[in-house]
């Protein structure tokens, strides 16, 4: 409902006329429950991994929600399904399997038994940042497949993208300025309190 209030406050009545009933129903659609949602693309194991990793990357703090609280896992699930090309979906899935193997070192184990610490170790040991060397890539520079590190980095990027483009973060955490009505250069603290804009 908050979103609807924000729209009501937008500028001229003329502008408001552009909001159609179908858009209202879209705005009112409820967010799904983190635990019970059914993925459209991800497998059950992949859903668990995406959810855990997203919340490690962006955990809840005193002032900011966690990634899963703003439906980042659902965002990633849909993003892989609708935005990635089929061949990239396949590459992503294959890389997920590498990660599942890394996490379930003991093949008997269930993904639900993987601890938070094990996920953190996965990131500490197998995720390499842009300035670091990814040994899996170095061993096979021409391979079309994605390395474990590349998938973890892709998940990080998607987590950030989904987080920043969520309604809660976009309207209440970042600086939200839908109708600025002016353009000028000014002091960062005065303009946004040091935050980035969401739009």
């Amino acid at each position, binding site marked *: 409902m908050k*979103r609807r209030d924000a729209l009501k406050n*937008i*500028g*001229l009545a*003329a*502008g*408001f*006329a*552009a*909001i*159609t009933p179908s*858009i209202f129903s879209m*705005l009112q659609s409820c967010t799904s429950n983190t635990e019970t949602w059914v993925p459209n693309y991800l497998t059950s194991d992949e859903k668990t991994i995406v959810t855990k990793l997203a919340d490690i*990357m*962006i*955990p809840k*703090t005193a002032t*900011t929600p966690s990634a899963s609280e703003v439906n980042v896992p659902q*965002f990633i699930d*849909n*993003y892989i399904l*609708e*935005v*990635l*090309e089929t061949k990239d979906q396949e590459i992503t899935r294959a890389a997920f399997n590498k990660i599942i193997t890394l996490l379930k070192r003991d093949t008997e184990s269930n993904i639900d038994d993987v601890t938070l610490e094990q996920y953190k170790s996965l*990131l*500490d040991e197998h995720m390499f*940042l*842009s*300035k670091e060397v990814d040994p899996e890539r170095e061993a096979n520079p021409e391979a079309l497949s994605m390395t474990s590190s590349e998938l973890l980095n892709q998940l990080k990027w998607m987590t*950030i*993208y*989904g*987080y*920043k*483009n969520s*309604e809660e973060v*976009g309207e209440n*955490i970042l600086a939200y*300025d*839908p*109708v*600025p*009505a*002016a*353009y*000028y*250069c*000014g*002091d*960062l*603290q005065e*303009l*946004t309190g*040091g*935050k*980035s*804009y*969401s*739009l």
Partner: protein
Amino acid sequence: MNNKMAKTEDNLFDAIVVGTGISGGWAAKELCEQGLKTLVLERGRMVKHIEDYTTAHLDPWDLPNGGETTQEIIDRKPKQHRTGYTTHPAREHFFVDDVKHPYNEEKRFDWMRGYHVGGRSLMWGRQSYRLSDVDFEANKKDGIAVDWPVRYKDIEPWYDKVEEYIGVSGQNLGLKHFPDQKLLKPMDLNCVEEHLQNKISEKFDDNRVLTIGRTAHITEGTKEGLGRSTCQYRSRCMRGCPYGAYFSSNSSTLPAADATGNMTLRPNSIVHEVIYDDSTKQATGVRVIDAETKETHIYKAKVIFLCASSIASASILLQSKSERFPNGLGNDSGELGHNIMDHHFHVGATATAKGYDDKYVKGRRPNGIYIPRFRNLGGNTDMKSFKRGYGYQGGASREDASELVAELKYGPKLTEAILKPGEWSVNLLAFGETLPDHNNKMYLDESKKDEWGLPTVTFDAAFGENEFEMRKDMQAQAKKMLEAAGYKNVEGYDNGGEAMGLGIHEMGTARMGRDPKTSVLNKHNQIHACTNVYVTDGAFMTSSGCQNPSLTYMAFTARAANHAAKNIKKNA
């Protein structure tokens, strides 16, 4: 707007305008205001101002996937997707479905377009610059192609008229090759751009200067049309502006035409032929296929304005065959469909500006900087390696996340970094003139028909040696200016040049000239040998300049429409 067919005897009008974009809107307005009963034909659907801007207020979270283009869209619009921005879910409905509207490429050509009332005036870039006599005299001076049959003084009053009506903001600089305009107050440069402006003026002695872009946005007061008011700095222009702040046919010229009571607007009307009568040496009307019902119609008029876009107008003329014009109406010269030009760009340099971490901006300015042409203007500006020149667009802005994001894997520090603005980056993106070349052409493929049974367009055009030589300088000078300003991480780039079209400035397919043997149109945009047909979209361009061309199309259209109206009244 009057959307229904007025019942006139024999479908007879004073004037027919084909197309409703930048040019068609102006033709409609001027002809209707001169009292002519005018039929305006648009091949696409109706788009009503404000009401049909269905995405104008959507935030990223109101769109699936944060507004990323889905594979479903790309599957229908693989060619429109080549820009990287036209298929964004908030605006892709204003760009054609490539499956439904196919074209052929002997050489790759990126033909970006929308089929709807308003045409590309809804999605245009809005940068508005005049040509000068440096441009109008260029072909003659260089001995290239043919001379423009007009000079700046012929067009100047029409530029004045158009600018005063549509509203263009910016700053006059008093440069001969970059004429002053009728401008509303300029938008602001930001603090980094002001710094760059000072450094460029300080460190270069060839009169190069940085200014704010001149853009067709209202920055003060209002303008005529459907409630046109000042820019709100939302930068969602391509979705249609609910404030009517930037100029479009939908907000401005079509309502003006409608207000006269003289306009009949018929969407879903595909014009495919201009009918020629050899006994009078004039055109009598047009053949139309209804895009939805596929019924065919003939509409007649005393004068016909082709404003369908450079490629589409040439295509209509090429389909208009008669005994007198076996190769297409007005094609005595063999130049129809030839001399395609577009501006070549995607070349320049980027850098990082340090020392402005405590600065940020209010608002999203739908405009950037402009550095007018500074090459081949005489003296120390003349270049041996290429003819003509280029201008830069671009500007400075802060990245939307801190660069620390790249150095962190997880945790609250990462969250903090993604919520903070990043460093200031500066981009100088050059737009260069393309020389006219007879070998660059489009033609019709009669063996490949679209769903209306009409031949499809095939492109065979590419940038040439002069453009590639110019690109070296475009990149080098961008780097030099950013280095002179003391910025870090200065990097040149050249990601374009392999195909025409991405400038979305395709032009030149029915050029103006003095001699019917070497050109299609005369100095009033009339077909030399069939003077009641005017072509006033980008097809008429004899050379390309390096300036964004829409303003010039509007000025020539207004001039031609008044010329036509005067002739009709004289003969009445």
